[in-house]
């Protein structure tokens, strides 16, 4: 299992808004454990909602990092609120939209929504609302040991940005 929970960035407005998508597929390992057949119930593959939160964290994290030219180490510090209205099954697509509410040298707060897209009929429905808080850890976590270089925005994120048609750091 790779740790990348968005497939493509569609829109990136500096310090304001980022939109990304992710396809949910039976080829992904975790849906086979979530949930396997049990008792009278057949296998019910569903994308774990924690990983949908991570998709939003990656979308919003790229937005926050991009706002400071990826100089800051942007770490998810708090899930203020997440509310799910539905679940995502394989064969569907997720669209993440993240907005920066506030940003300063200490970190940023973001809010956003996840939309479920059905490729069979292009129908869209609201899947989740997610509010996150990110910390710029160079400013906030003195005492904890972490590398000096920006380990947060590594090659994987750079590749997603570049492959989506955006400049990467």
């Amino acid at each position: 299992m790779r740790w990348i929970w968005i497939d493509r960035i569609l829109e990136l407005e500096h310090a304001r808004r980022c939109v990304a998508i992710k396809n949910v597929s039976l080829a992904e390992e975790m849906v086979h454990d979530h949930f396997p057949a049990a008792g009278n119930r057949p296998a019910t593959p569903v994308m774990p909602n924690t990983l949908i939160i991570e998709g939003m964290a990656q979308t919003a994290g790229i937005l926050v990092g991009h706002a400071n030219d990826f100089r800051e180490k942007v770490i998810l510090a708090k899930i203020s609120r997440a509310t799910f209205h539905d679940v995502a099954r394989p064969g569907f697509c997720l669209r993440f939209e993240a907005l920066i509410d506030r940003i300063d040298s200490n970190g940023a707060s973001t809010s956003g929504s996840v939309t479920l897209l059905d490729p069979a009929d292009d129908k869209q429905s609201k899947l989740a609302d997610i509010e996150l808080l990110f910390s710029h850890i160079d400013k906030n976590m003195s005492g904890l040991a972490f590398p000096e270089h920006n380990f947060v925005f590594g090659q994987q994120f750079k590749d997603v940005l570049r492959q989506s048609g955006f400049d990467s750091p």
Partner: protein
Amino acid sequence: MRFELIDRVIDRDDQHLIAVKCVSSAEEYLADHFPGFAVLPGVMMLEAMVQAGRALLSDRMGDDPLVLTDVRNVRYGNMVRPGQCLTVRVKLRKQDADGWDLEGSGSVEDQVAVQGRFRLTPLCAAMDRTDV
């Protein structure tokens, strides 16, 4: 790789459960989070609390699995690294017709790595929460 975030249940009663998640470099996704500096992703700590909650409620649910529908104020503290074990504690706060509200935390040797509240709902009910 298996999506199992609880390795052992250590103790439990009707309202509480304590479990352990041992973090190992053998977990493939850690190579991406982050290259050269592996740390357990925050959402995986939340998933560990969710799976602990499911284990706590396993005697009370039917065939319908419980899914995470709400998260409130989950805060992250210390980083958790391969070779460390996260002790996960969950407590049932209340239940209603639609689901269960829980409070959870995860710590490594008394240093808190995660704490917060969340709600688990049976899958069928979780699939149509347009009124929420």
